[in-house]
Structure formats: structure tokens, C-alpha cells
């Protein structure tokens, strides 16, 4: 039976929060000795990119959003760290519902592509996936704005 529809919550914190997290992680990155070498630009790029995503995940939802959890977990795995998330009250029972869901071939194809793009989208049902995508898009655009600001401030042309 249909559940009660609460308004879909896709609030994203202000740019300040994003900026704060990003700058913090950037400064941490700066502290590393190997960072400033002129060669190995690719590594630097990769590190900055990873830092950007991680800071975005932390700023945007912390561990409340599925995609941020997946992102943080993935990043931690790369560093061989173990991330511990506080246990959520609700268990995601998507498996049970899948049995009765109608599979639309066109939609499923698109959903597959979305799942590959949005972190953590692997086990999600389409409605949840779309919610996460909306939040992800908002956070991504916020992060892009922050980074653009930073770059413009640092390298005025």
C-alpha cells in the first residue's frame, strides 16, 4: 500500500560549509612533504580530486546520505583505513520490494548508468536512486562553485 508522502528532503548546506571542509583538507594536504614537487602532477591532481570529493561528502551530508557514506567508505578503503559508521535506525529493505517491481527495460538501462555515476548507487531502487541523485547534483554544483571561487582567487588572470 502507498506510504505517506513526506516532502522529499534535498537540503544542502551553504557554501561556507563546503568551503570550510575543502580548505581544511587542502591545508592538510599541503602539509604533506611530497606535495609540492613539480613532477608527479597527476598524483597531485588525483589527490586533490579525492580530497575534493571527500570534503564534499563530509560537508554535504556527513553520513546521513547514502552516496556520501559510499564515497567515504571508498576513500577510506583506498587508504586502507576502516571507516565506522553509526548504525542507522532504519534498515534499507529494498530487496524485499524488488520482487514485485515492474522492470521497465528503458528505465533500467538509464538507472544502471546513474548507478555507475552516483556513488553508492549499486543497491538502490530507482526512487531512492533518484533522490540521491538530486542531492548529489546539488552538492556537486556547490562544490564546483567553491572550487571555482578558490581557483579564481588564487590565480587571477
Amino acid at each position, binding site marked *: *500500500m502507498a506510504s505517506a508522502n513526506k516532502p522529499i528532503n534535498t537540503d544542502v548546506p551553504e557554501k561556507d560549509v563546503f568551503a*570550510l571542509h575543502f*580548505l581544511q583538507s587542502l591545508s592538510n594536504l599541503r602539509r604533506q612533504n611530497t606535495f609540492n614537487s613539480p613532477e608527479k602532477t597527476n598524483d597531485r591532481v588525483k589527490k586533490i580530486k579525492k580530497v575534493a570529493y571527500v570534503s564534499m561528502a563530509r560537508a554535504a551530508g556527513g553520513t546521513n546520505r547514502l552516496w556520501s557514506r559510499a564515497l567515504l567508505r571508498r576513500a577510506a578503503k583506498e587508504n586502507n583505513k576502516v571507516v565506522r559508521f553509526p548504525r542507522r535506525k532504519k534498515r534499507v529493505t529494498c530487496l524485499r520490494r524488488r520482487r514485485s517491481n515492474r522492470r521497465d527495460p528503458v528505465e533500467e538501462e*538509464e538507472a544502471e548508468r546513474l548507478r555507475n555515476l552516483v556513488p553508492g548507487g549499486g543497491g538502490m531502487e530507482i526512487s531512492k536512486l533518484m533522490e540521491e541523485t538530486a542531492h548529489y547534483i546539488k552538492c556537486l554544483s556547490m562544490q564546483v562553485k567553491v572550487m571555482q571561487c578558490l581557483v579564481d582567487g*588564487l590565480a587571477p588572470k
Partner: protein
Amino acid sequence: MDLSGGFGARSGGGVPFREVTALESLHLGGGDEFRRMVPPENAGGFTALLELPPTQAVELLHSSSSSSPSQPTLHSLGTLAFPSNSVLMERAARFSVIATEQHNQNGNVSGETTTTSSVPSNERIKTEPAETETCDQAAVEEQNNRCGGKRKDFDKKVKSSTKKKNKSSEESEKLPYVHVRARRGQATDSHSLAERARREKINARMKLLQELVPGCDKIQGTALVLDEIINHVQSLQRQVEMLSMRLASVNPRIDFNLDTILASENGSLMDGNFNGTAMQLAWPHQVMETEQSYHHRQLQQPPPQQWPFDGLNQPVWGREEDQDLGNDHNSLMVGAANLHPNQVKMEL
């Protein structure tokens, strides 16, 4: 919603519980939806078709669909006796009254009162084509609940006419509760209900995504919209990558001029140390003179104005468009400083 309350109250006596719940599960959203959804055939005659054997009913239905309000057909039906259906007719008539009262669709609403005989109720029902949707569904639902097997093939035949009503389900999203309405001619088993609810959810979220992604409202069809969304996400991710590349190339620059930034700083900082320290960490080659010059300047010239912090944030972010280059980065720091000065101090 008083409508469902009215349903419950009126059909309280001597009605099996199933029917009550089925009726209560009707929900009437905006009146416009109904008007748009009026099927070409006269829905009013549906209640009269209830007791007929399926084939005859179908025949009647099809004949009525080909012609506009088929008064002559129904008049002939009206002469048929529906001894066991009087209660049903009354209830259906009452519901139609309620529906029309709520939606104010037709002029002859006010004249409607509950009927005593089944025959006049038929006629009155059929003269209000718009609202009979509800009594159809009431009738259908009741009928389905009563003799489910008999209706199934009938349902299939009229299923095509109900496909276009799928859109009406979206209105229920706006309400605090959801009444899932069984569409005309569709089965009311739990699977299709759940599936319908799921469809509604997906459509609602699709609308949300359409608002987010620029240029998506014009596109029709879910597949194309999804394509657009995917493209947007990909472009955003590529932008992040591009900007991180630029940042990586900018960072080790030695000739970066910090003085211009500090000079253009015009907000009071809650924590001057933070700014100095952060800059120091970000550009280690400029460590000492940055901090010294900054403190020096601050000691000598106290900031001319104390800007309120929340007021600061608005113009700060608003100025981005002008690309006030010196200010941008600084205001970022300021904004960040305002937020969690203590926390940042500890971390740095």
C-alpha cells in the same frame, strides 16, 4: 478530509467493512483533473450496468462510447429492475452528490438530493458526466469486492480507457496522506496498488530532478530526461576534475601575491589567527611575512567597520559574479572563519 469522513459516516450502517474501506480509499484531488479525465463514453451509465451480464454490459458500454451522453440507451436501462441494487444506487448517488458538491463542476449540483428510487438516480447520475467518475469507481470497487471473478474480463476490456488517467495519481503526492485510487477497470489487488504507488514516487522524484537540471522541463519522456540528468552529472564531475587540475597547477606557485588579498580585506575577522594560519599552511613559502604583515597591519589599523557576520555572508557570496578577485578567496576564508572558528583553530 471530510470527504472520506462523509463516506464513513453515511455508509456506516449495514455495510460490509470491505466496501467502506474501498470507498474511503477514493480520493478526489483537484477538480481539474476530473474534468480532464472525463472519458468520451458516458460514465454515468456505468452504475446501471452493474447487474447486467458482462457481455451485454460491454455491448452497452461500447455503444455508449460511440455516442455522446447516451440518454436513450440508459433510459432503456432505467426500465430494467434493479431490486438488489437500490442500496447501491442510493449510495452511488450520494457519493456523486458529495463529489459534485466538492468540485462544483456542474450547474445542476445544487438540485441534487439523495434519491429514493433507483431509476431516477440513474438518470441524475448520468446527467453529470464529470463527477460520475467517483461513483463509477465506487461501484466498480464494490462490484469487484463482491464478485471479483465476474468482473475480471470486463475489466480488461475497459482497461484501455483508463490508461490515460494515470496522470491523475500525481496529485495525491501533495497531500499529507495518500489515498490510492483504484482506476476504472483496473484490478485492485495489492500488487498493482503498490506498483502504482511506486510509479507515483518515481514520477515525483523525476519532477524534482527536472527542476534541478537546467533545460529539462522541455523534454518529454522519462528516458530523455534521464539522459539529460546523466549528462549533467557527468559534466559536473568533469568540472570538478578540471578545477582540481587547475588547483594542483596553481598551488606551488611562488610568486603568488598575498599582499593584495590582505590589503583588500575589509571584514572583521572573528579569528584573525585562523586566517593567518590557514594562509600560512596553504602557502608555506610565504609563511613568516604573511603572518607578520597581517598582524602588523591589524595592530596598526583596526578594521574600519565591524560588519555583522550574517550580513557579511550575503554580500560575500553575491559578489562572486563580479569576480572581485582579491575578495573572493578572502571572503571564502572569512565565511569559513565565521562558521567554526574554534573548531578550525583546534584542527589547524
